[in-house]
């Protein structure tokens, strides 16, 4: 049996160009997906964080940055507390970062209008129920955008 293949260099270039376009769009989609995931986790966490003086809530933050230690389009999202200038609790005079671990971890202490594990629980819930949905949503958008561009 023989197989004959005719490959045109111009078509190969077009294919190569199309693949690169898809990769670029996937890269942009990865960043959007990471931002969407961070925002959703932070929203869920804000609903659970104790709100006695609202200090911890106002220190909630997220940041997304491209990873330099990994090849390709890889982004890292950090969601946490103790940011936004690390506000001071008006009752205790302490900065949010100085008591956020205790507030998050101490399950014996009372939590006014909130609960312990206010970040861990949302992250776990998101990872189990919503992470794949976000990936598929933004990957599908990126591929659709590439297809539309290639069709032109």
């Amino acid at each position, binding site marked *: 049996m023989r197989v004959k293949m005719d490959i045109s260099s111009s078509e190969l270039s077009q294919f190569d160009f199309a693949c690169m376009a898809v990769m670029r769009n996937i890269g942009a989609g990865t960043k959007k997906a990471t931002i969407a995931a961070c925002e959703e986790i932070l929203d869920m966490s804000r609903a659970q964080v104790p709100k006695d003086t609202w200090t911890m809530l106002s220190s909630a933050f997220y940041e997304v940055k491209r990873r330099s230690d990994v090849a390709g389009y890889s982004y890292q999202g950090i969601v946490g507390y103790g940011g936004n200038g690390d506000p001071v609790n008006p009752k205790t005079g302490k900065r949010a970062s100085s008591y956020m*671990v205790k507030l998050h*971890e*101490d*399950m014996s202490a009372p939590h006014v209008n909130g609960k312990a*594990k206010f970040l861990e629980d949302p992250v776990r819930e998101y990872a189990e129920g919503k992470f794949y949905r976000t990936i598929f949503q933004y990957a599908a958008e990126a591929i659709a955008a590439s297809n539309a561009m290639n069709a032109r």
Partner: protein
Amino acid sequence: MATLLIDIGTFLTANGVTTGDGVDLFRDFRPEDPDDVVVLHEYPGSPATPYDSIVHRSVQVAVRGIDADLVRAKALRIFELLTAENRIIEFTPDRWGQVYLRQPPFKMDTDARNRVVYAFNTGITTTKE
């Protein structure tokens, strides 16, 4: 088979880390006295599935005492007791669990009476009971 926290407590007492439930070992509650206590808290794990009796649960181990070095050493001892190459720990003859140690012991608090609390979190795959 008792509840998960009772079974973990039985395991800790059998290994000489605690004296007994309600003495220096407490569940979901940290009393003011005595100073030296081990407290087990269960908090939300993964959602259960109707077709599987095995679930993923979350347990925090907290150790309180006056001497920070001793408290940390006790927390580390419990951490090591829950460490196995295949992650499987037999808490009692009726209860086993696959234990995922989420982090080594960390200092959680120093309370108003200058007592130090070290804690670490675990994920345990075991039965619903």
